[in-house]
């Protein structure tokens, strides 16, 4: 198992270097001049040129890129043009909020998606199954930013039950987490359903039925354990979607997380913040996926045995 984790960690290194390359190249070819942004629009050309030299913006691409990754390796992501503070500090201080929001939405997605998926599969072709399939398809089709607005309209404006901005108290958690979590709940439901249906057709389920085992024991002890394995992968992949959803939702609900900070940074052309934010979130996403894969390998004896 250790060997597996180590191998996966090592495999992450080239991918992450690739990510830095993509992000750096994007900023390199970008329209607009960071030195000009930093110096201000009115600054004389000589001062901008001096700043450009000082920041190393006149160096060749390879030199700049090498300097960038050595800095990143030391967790130096540069300085925000807008606030003048180190990007790393700015992002890390907002990190817990974004993670909290993402975690809440995963919990909601799993708590809704898995049970509905099981019910739908065990009652295949019933009215409930049809309705769940339809609602599931609807769930993946509603854009989360629109859902956020509709939830604000209903629960915030019309009914006045829930606050529509901030993320400090539990009542403020509900609307944003639901608006992000619903579409993932639908995807998890669809996956649980199809995986459960597959498992329910296996011989060992028939054997369990034949020996007179109770229905609930068959579903929860024999079928669910195996059916959940592919669901774990989907949950891992959905985390990337949820992180993306968090970025949109933070903007709608005025939540002071990384997403809001980054979108503000786009408007201000604050490239170090965009670079740093994308890189840190990509790193988080890769780590989460690694954890998911380890869990996957751990719960699936077929994979586990390969690394004994």
């Amino acid at each position, binding site marked *: 198992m250790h060997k597996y984790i180590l191998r996966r960690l090592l495999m992450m290194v080239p991918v992450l270097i690739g990510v830095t390359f*993509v992000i750096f190249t994007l900023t390199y*070819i970008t329209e607009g001049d960071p030195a000009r942004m930093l110096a201000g629009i009115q600054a004389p050309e000589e001062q901008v040129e001096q700043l450009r030299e000082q920041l190393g913006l006149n160096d060749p691409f390879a030199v700049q890129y090498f300097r960038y990754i050595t800095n990143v390796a030391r967790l130096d992501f540069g300085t925000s043009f807008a606030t003048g503070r180190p990007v790393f500090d700015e992002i890390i201080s907002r990190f817990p909020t974004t993670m909290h929001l993402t975690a809440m939405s995963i919990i909601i997605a799993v708590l809704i998606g898995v049970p509905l998926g099981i019910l739908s599969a065990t009652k295949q072709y019933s009215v409930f199954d049809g309705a769940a399939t339809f609602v599931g398809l609807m769930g993946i089709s509603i854009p989360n930013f629109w859902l956020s607005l509709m939830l604000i309209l209903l629960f915030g404006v019309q009914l006045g039950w829930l606050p529509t901005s901030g993320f400090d108290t539990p009542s403020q958690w509900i609307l944003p987490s639901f608006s992000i979590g619903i579409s993932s709940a639908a995807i998890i439901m669809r996956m649980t359903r199809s995986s459960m249906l597959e498992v329910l057709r296996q011989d060992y389920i028939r054997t369990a039925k034949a020996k007179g085992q109770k229905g609930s024991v068959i579903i929860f002890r024999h079928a669910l354990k195996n059916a959940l394995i592919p669901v774990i992968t989907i949950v891992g992949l959905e985390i990337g979607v949820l992180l993306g959803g968090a970025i949109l939702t933070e903007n709608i609900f005025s939540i002071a997380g990384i997403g809001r900070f980054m979108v503000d940074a*786009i408007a201000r052309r604050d490239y170090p913040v965009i670079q740093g934010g994308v890189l840190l979130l990509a790193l988080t996403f890769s780590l989460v996926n690694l954890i998911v894969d380890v869990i996957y390998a751990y719960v699936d004896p077929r994979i586990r045995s390969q690394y004994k």
Partner: protein
Amino acid sequence: MGDVTVNVNNESKKKRSQLHDVWRRFRKSPIAMTGLCVVVFMVLVALFADVIAPSDGRNPGYDIHNLGNRFQAPNAEHIMGTDEFGRDIFARVVHGSRVSLLVGFIVVTFSMTLGVIVGAIAGFFGKVAENILMRFIDVLLSIPPILLAISIAAAMRPGMMSIVLAVGIGALPLYARVMRASVLTVKEQEFIEAAYSIGASKFRIIRKHVLPNCIAPIIVQATMGLAYAILWAAALSFLGIGIQPPTPEWGAMLSEGRMYIRDHWHMVMFPGMAIAIMIFALNMMGDGLRDAFDPRLKK
């Protein structure tokens, strides 16, 4: 797999009947047909936007400011109300279908073409090419799509081009992976070996024998991909880094309406509904197509 072998000998006739089979199965699914009808309806709305909601000064236009008319709630004259400049929201939603569908089609064409090429090369040639290309795909996959889109869109001047690149590159891995997987299965088939043995070139084999047999999963992916593209294009415009006002784009309209959400609900209701219905219909169609192409998957 016997029918695939026949495919080589009697390609055109067989292909027609396979498509016919797919259509026969597709037609049987009420969900899929509903999806198809809605999509066709939306395309017609987009094509005839100028007839449905003309903007000629007499009618409430999608682009004519009329400040005396602003913030009207839905009524007989403006069935979806008017916005902060007094423009008719119904007309803007109708014209917005043009923008969304156009962006969607361009994005899908772009990412599908690139994805199919990358996937086909990786799957067919294997070895070094596969390693390099698929590691690149891994890199793209490890950046959550919206983040990738944000960094691309932020690097360029906002507009059609930045959206197409941002969403298109984000979607590329999906096509590349699907394509590679199907090429890997197809290239082991006997009819590929047969084509080699009669001296066909690699390029010819890919074009004539591999691609046609990998097309089904790609078509399904493209239908879903159109939904994905429309959704993310709207999301980027919503964030203000996509299509810019005054162009009537659904996401941008939501972003404008958001500021007035407390008093004028209609401004955020209808554009979002249009996005949701469009994506819902495409997903229904995609689900139906997948089942129709591969009846074994139907549970």
